[in-house]
């Protein structure tokens, strides 16, 4: 499945490195990244492919949440279809 990972929070050094590090470790392939600073908030959305992932979605979410909590970020993993169905006819 393809998932959208969103990372939102206070900007600081090393956010992308930390998040993509976890993804690489879990064998999640990043297909596309978009990152901006929106109203002083670091905002990153990533399109990822979880086909080769060796752990469950819950475990991935938990790992990312743990890293997010440490860095003061909100990190979510959600099936791509949610966004497609809401914004595309």
């Amino acid at each position: 499945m393809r998932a959208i990972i969103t990372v939102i929070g206070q900007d600081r050094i090393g956010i992308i490195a930390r998040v993509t590090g976890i993804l690489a470790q879990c064998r999640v392939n990043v297909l596309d990244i978009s990152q901006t600073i929106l109203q002083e908030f670091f905002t990153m959305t990533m399109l990822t492919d979880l086909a080769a992932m060796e752990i469950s979605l819950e475990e991935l979410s938990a790992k990312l949440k743990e890293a997010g909590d440490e860095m003061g970020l909100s990190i979510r993993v959600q099936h791509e279809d949610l966004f497609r169905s809401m914004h595309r006819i």
Partner: protein
Amino acid sequence: MKQNEILETIRMIEQQKLDIRTITLGISLRGCAGDDADTVCGRIYDTITARAENLTRVSHAIETEYGVPIINRRVSVTPIALVADALDLDGFLKVAQTLDKAAKAVGVDFLGGYSALVHKGFARGDDTLLTALPEALSTTDRVCASINVATTRAGINMDAVARMGRIIKDTAERSADRDGIGCAKLVTFANVPEDNPFMAGAFHGIGEPECVVNVGISGPGAVKSALESVRGEPFDIVAETVKKTAFKITRMGQLVAREASRRLGVPFGIVDLSLAPTPAVGDSVAHILEEMGVEVCGAPGTTAALALLNDAVKKGGVMASGHVGGLSGAFIPVSEDEGMIAAVKRGALSLNKLEAMTAVCSVGLDMIAVPGDTSAETLSALIADEMAIGVVNGKTTAVRVIPAPGKQAGDRVAFGGLLGEAPVMEVSEFGSADLIKRGGRIPAPIHSLRN
């Protein structure tokens, strides 16, 4: 996908409390009928626990995968008056206990279908079920009951209306220690839909398949937030904005419904396009109406604003889902809506205004606490008025009213959880006993000469 679209969805879920209100599994219990109570109860328990075995697991899996909160899982069943028709009063009470036990076993917070359709009269099972209601509702936690007493084609069964007043009084008194909470699980309907996933009025209609998945969506917060961006604009733009938001919300509901249907191996029934408030801050239908420009919900103009909202939600939602049904529209349950509660406390929202609002919205007089000394006849007369609105306008209306024992107008009742809390509302001091005493049926209205 564009980043702003992704972030819009995240905002809707995180800040505006957008959620799937309920995945409701409709289960036919027609095969459970019999003339021995223990046999019937055994079959009912086995059928529900087998069919709904995976409901909680599947719901949690979808919630995790899509990151969409799914607040409730529920079960609706064939009206028990049909299933238990051959049983006596004791048998009906056993069935209520069995349904409660089955609901707990499969992990659903409410199970609907302790119901009867009596708009033209009482069959044997209907009569027994109505007699059983006060005890059944006050000795179970999760069983919900609904009685359809009127339809546009049949008119209003005033004998049933009279009985419902007495049943509501009795039920409230039996749950007096909890502010009459038994009545929060009892709805009196006109034109009841057979595929409604929302409680307390859900049941699995006789035209439904063996088993079906219905999904109820919500999202008053998302609509309110969208309207904040069009402040001062004309109503054409307000309507368009509500439609677009309703479309997005419903698409999410459709996605969840389709996935739940696939994973449970059960056909998809409908998405119910409802704006269902909760007591949570920011999840209020009243605040949408206030955003449209009334100072407080209940002020003149509230009915017009609600009419637009109700219609635009349907228009936006219909295109987003394969099948739409249930109650579909805006709900105005007083105790479950922070803004409605505040409006009542400020003296802006009266029972009379709520009655007018029910003529243009999805349901009816919902979750309204009235003084404990309100007579059964007055409760019946409130029901009769509401049924008349539904019957004449060809829409669903309902009454879920709680005569809170020992409470006066202005006091407060608290039911906890989704049922919320409410100020006790003032009821007319003038009686209607002679009207209710007449009984009989109010004939169905004519469908031409519409004025």
